[in-house]
């Protein structure tokens, strides 16, 4: 029997393997990246499935972000409670029970349709094709994409074609936030009752012309606010929820009704229907 081929195979693979190992070893030393030792400990505490549920491109990326102190320690879904506790201990965070968060729809448009849209009934498709279907280009398109993507069935469309959030059912998962092409939906603490119901960054006069409920950047709310929580940026009032006490003063002075008090309108499906 000819053993030449056996010898050659062993030699070829052995030599190649050793050579490649050497190259990799040299490369590893030459291109070594200094890692935070904390990062490695955090990585070890995670589930290690690289599932991406935390929103990062793998466990290593999330571990890096946590070790840098940028993000909460609780994002590892497959790791669950144990992983969250371990990570929080490592990075010195404390895990607090989360306040209930709900989706808030920042549009209360009273705007005329700019076109007669009869395309695909999906806000993302309509945005990709025509940009918008109302005079106000920042307005909610009302095609109900957020309601369809909601896994909890917590959003339904009002007669005006605006999404309404059933806050008993909303889990604050934020899927609707990602689905909305206009960036109209955000997730906020349920305890915050007062919200700017407008996303228009048009100048006051233009915005007013296009929508009756537009924020016209008049600044009355800024003056009225006791907590100094409102600022005008890009012709749009923004509430800093860390300062806001939900007193409702701004709602009273807003000349266009662009700021809404959810204590009056908030409600569950049964209340409205």
């Amino acid at each position, binding site marked *: 029997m000819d053993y030449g081929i056996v*010898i050659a195979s062993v030699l070829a693979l052995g030599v190649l*393997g050793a050579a490649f190992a050497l190259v990799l070893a040299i490369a590893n030393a030459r291109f070594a990246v200094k890692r935070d030792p904390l990062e490695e400990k955090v990585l070890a505490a995670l589930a290690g499935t690289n599932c991406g549920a935390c929103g990062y491109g793998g466990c290593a*990326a999330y571990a890096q972000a946590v070790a840098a102190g940028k993000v909460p320690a609780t994002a590892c879904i497959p790791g669950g409670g144990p992983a969250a506790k371990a990570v929080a201990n490592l990075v010195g965070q404390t895990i607090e029970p989360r306040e209930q968060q709900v989706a808030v729809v920042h549009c209360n448009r009273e705007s005329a349709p700019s076109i007669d849209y009869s395309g695909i009934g999906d806000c993302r498709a309509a945005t990709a094709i025509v940009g918008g279907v109302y005079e106000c280009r920042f307005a909610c398109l009302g095609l109900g994409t957020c309601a369809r993507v909601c896994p909890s069935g917590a959003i339904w469309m009002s007669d005006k074609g605006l999404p309404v959030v059933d806050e008993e059912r909303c889990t604050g998962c934020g899927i609707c936030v990602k689905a909305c092409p206009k960036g109209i939906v955000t997730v906020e603490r349920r305890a915050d009752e007062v919200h700017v119901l407008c996303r228009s960054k048009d100048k006051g006069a233009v915005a007013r012309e296009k929508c009756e409920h537009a924020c016209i950047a008049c600044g009355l709310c800024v003056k009225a606010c006791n907590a100094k929580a409102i600022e005008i940026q890009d012709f749009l009032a923004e509430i800093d929820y860390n300062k806001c006490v939900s007193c409702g003063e701004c709602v009273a002075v807003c000349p266009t009704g662009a700021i809404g008090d959810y204590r009056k309108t908030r409600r569950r499906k049964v209340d409205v229907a």
Partner: protein
Amino acid sequence: MVAMAYTVDISSFFTIVISMVFVSNFVLARFLGLCPFIGVTNRASSAFGMGAAVTFVMTLASSVSWLIYRYMLLPAADSGFNVFAALAIIKPDASLVLVLKTVTYILVIATLVQLVELVMRRTTPKLYLALGIYLPLITTNCAVLGVALLNTTDTPEVLTFAAATLQGFFAGVGFALVMVLMSAIRERLDLLGVPEAMKGAPIAFICTALMALAFMGFGGLAGATR
């Protein structure tokens, strides 16, 4: 003869480009690399990143596997030089190619991917993070092994080193092209009212089949399929 083995003339250059990118596209004509094709085409950005990474690995794998094939596996009578024969260890015959081809190529590809990963993590950490899990996955991408094997079948003609490398590069370009095209289609498909049972992979495969039909039209272009 030896000098010739490293060059490529202009007409075969264009034959390689047309056949690798269009006529014998790895995804649509050879049906290789379908896993990343379906898995990573949800978003255009990740599809492009994966395409670029695969192109890079394919090019390197083509040239390295060509050298190994030519100077380690082929008998000296065919290639003019064999490292085993030269060192007088054994006199390899043609069976060595059959036995060792696939396993050495996998070794080469795995090493290259590791190497690329190491270098990228140091030099371009952003790109490294963007590719994330896809980079190590290229190790098991059959399109990469496919191009290395096809480069060294010596049919219908013996490829030069340059031709093999170019073939690897343009196979990767063809792969990347189809990835990006498909991601554009799938980003739109997401918005349509696709029936529940057809959502995701089923409709993606149907679209792939239609694309493959369209790409068959390129078959008349070159008349020269590799």
